[in-house]
């Protein structure tokens, strides 16, 4: 797939403070890319630089091959932007709002009329096309604004916190619409605080705190941070033949034994369960199961642990940037032990 957005060492400084620094990123055609970060992380500055509203202090970026500094008009023709506020004219009707923006993109009169009608119908606003935007709910305004940002069929869509001011129902409407845009060949950059939103919508996610802390698919981010872990829950840890009596001690001893198996990393124990870190659960899980059964263990659950993106995000943004380096592809990162459970040091995987 072609990279529609190419960002190289992009930075923006306000006085002595770098709002964004050394950001390098490529976004493919058709990809929904999530930009996650806390307040003040530079998400909006990134969007404004890509929309040619703010000039970078360092680095470069191209959209559809056009440089954001040298060819701002060509870039703007190819992007659509949706900001936190709807950016509509309250006194104008829904149809007038769309038609006005369509004309700014030099669409023909037939296209202006046709596309406004298409999007109003698609978003369920056709019946209220003649009503002033001021009479719309915030969810409807945001939908109308979404239509505005798409009216010229942009190749790249920049969505800056599109659901942050909406109630849950309005947010769902907008999220569903974003999801429906998948597979239409346009790249979407979605800035959000909402981790569940990023997890459900985005093909890849970048965690930003002035610079790019980590990038990868939501699954990659989760697993790269904590490694892949498999839970083995045992039914009879207190009654294993050949092992010392007393629940807790036996499972700890068993965990030490498991951690010495090839391919196994750290092993953590919580209650009747062992959480075993490993690079490749598909390869190593059968061997561990076999070993546990040979020791007389009755296994009642074997499942890979799913870590939430939220936990990965919170862990990443709470650490100093230098811990992670300027940019890290999720897949290249060394797995870390699960922070919330006690661990037993094991053989390096």
């Amino acid at each position: 797939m072609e990279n529609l957005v190419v960002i190289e060492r992009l930075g923006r400084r306000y006085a002595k403070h770098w709002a964004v620094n050394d950001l390098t990123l490529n976004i493919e055609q058709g990809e929904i890319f999530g930009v996650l970060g806390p307040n003040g992380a530079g998400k909006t500055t990134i969007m404004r630089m890509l929309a040619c509203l703010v000039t970078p202090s360092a680095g470069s970026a191209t959209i559809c091959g056009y440089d954001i500094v040298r060819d701002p008009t060509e870039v703007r023709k190819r992007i659509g932007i949706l900001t936190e506020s709807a950016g509509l004219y309250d006194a104008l009707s829904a149809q007038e709002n769309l038609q006005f923006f369509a004309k700014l993109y030099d669409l023909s009169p037939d296209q202006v009329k046709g596309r406004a009608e298409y999007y109003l119908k698609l978003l369920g606003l056709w019946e209220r096309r003649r009503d002033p935007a001021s009479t719309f709910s915030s969810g409807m305004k945001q939908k109308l604004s979404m239509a505005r940002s798409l009216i010229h069929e942009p190749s790249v869509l920049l969505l800056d916190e599109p659901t942050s001011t909406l109630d849950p129902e309005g947010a769902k409407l907008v999220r569903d619409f974003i999801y429906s845009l998948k597979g239409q060949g346009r790249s979407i950059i979605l800035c959000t605080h909402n981790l569940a939103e990023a997890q459900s919508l985005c093909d890849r996610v970048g965690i930003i705190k002035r610079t790019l802390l980590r990038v990868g698919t939501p699954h990659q981010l989760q697993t790269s941070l904590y490694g892949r872990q498999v839970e083995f829950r045992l039914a009879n840890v207190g009654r294993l033949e050949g092992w010392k009596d007393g629940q807790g001690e036996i499972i700890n001893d068993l965990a030490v034994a498991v951690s010495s198996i090839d391919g196994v990393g750290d092993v953590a124990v919580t209650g009747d369960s062992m959480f075993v870190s490993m690079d490749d659960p598909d390869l190593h899980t059968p061997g561990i199961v076999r070993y546990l059964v040979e020791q007389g263990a009755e296994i009642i659950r074997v499942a890979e642990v799913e870590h939430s993106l939220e936990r990965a995000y919170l862990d990443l943004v709470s650490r100093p940037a230098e811990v992670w380096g300027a940019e890290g592809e999720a897949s290249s990162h060394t797995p870390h032990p699960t922070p919330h459970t006690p661990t037993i040091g094991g053989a390096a995987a």
Partner: protein
Amino acid sequence: MKGGKIINGRVIAVIENEWAQMRRNRVVVLTTFAPPFLFVGLALTVLYISSFIDLNPAAVSKISGILSQSLPSTMYVLDRSDAVRAALLNPFLILFEMLPIVVPLTVASYSITGEKQNRSLETLLSTPIRTWELLLAKALAAAIPGVAATWYSFVIFLIAARFLVTRDLYQNLILSPTWLIAISLLTPIFTMFAVSLGIIISSRVKDPQGAQQLGSLIVLPLVGIMIAQVLGAVDVNFSAILTTALVVAIADVLLLALAVRLFRRETIFTGWK
């Protein structure tokens, strides 16, 4: 200016958008279109009342002297009644010039700060519209209604005044080249000057209140000219008007170019809250 025609589709779209919003704002409609008609009513009332005023010969002589400077081709001798009317009417020319400036200036002063306040500026500036297209469109959208209202009301004044003044005064003062050129040429040129200044202020001031307060200062020089003319210190004659028109027209172009140079997208986004 790159990008083909000056009045292109994007400029027209912004003008239409501005007008569509104005139409829905009764206060703007009223303040744009009512004052010209009020001025016409005032001028006609003054003309009517003036027929009851009598002047001494010395005053008539002085008025004739002033008028002979503004109307060099007019060598007629005013009778007493016409002298009074001419003296009262002449300052209305400046008032007619001020009419299309005051309200469009307010609209222009609000043009950029209003977009910012409405939170539509970011989406507007992320479209392919160029700065000069946006500012030209905003200036024209603010100026055209004011100029049109002035021309319209002046036509009404022309028709009504015909019944209130003598043929001599009507043809030699109201239909004089000085008045006609002033209304037809100076009105749009002055208006564009004022709205261009208003737009510069609007794109440099952070809030609409500040923009309007600063914008109101632009009218002061015109008020000064009017007072000077009433006092006989300034001659508003044909050649003066043509010279003024030329100078202000050049200033209009330069001001719009300056407005484009002074328009800082970044400052608007990063400096305005």
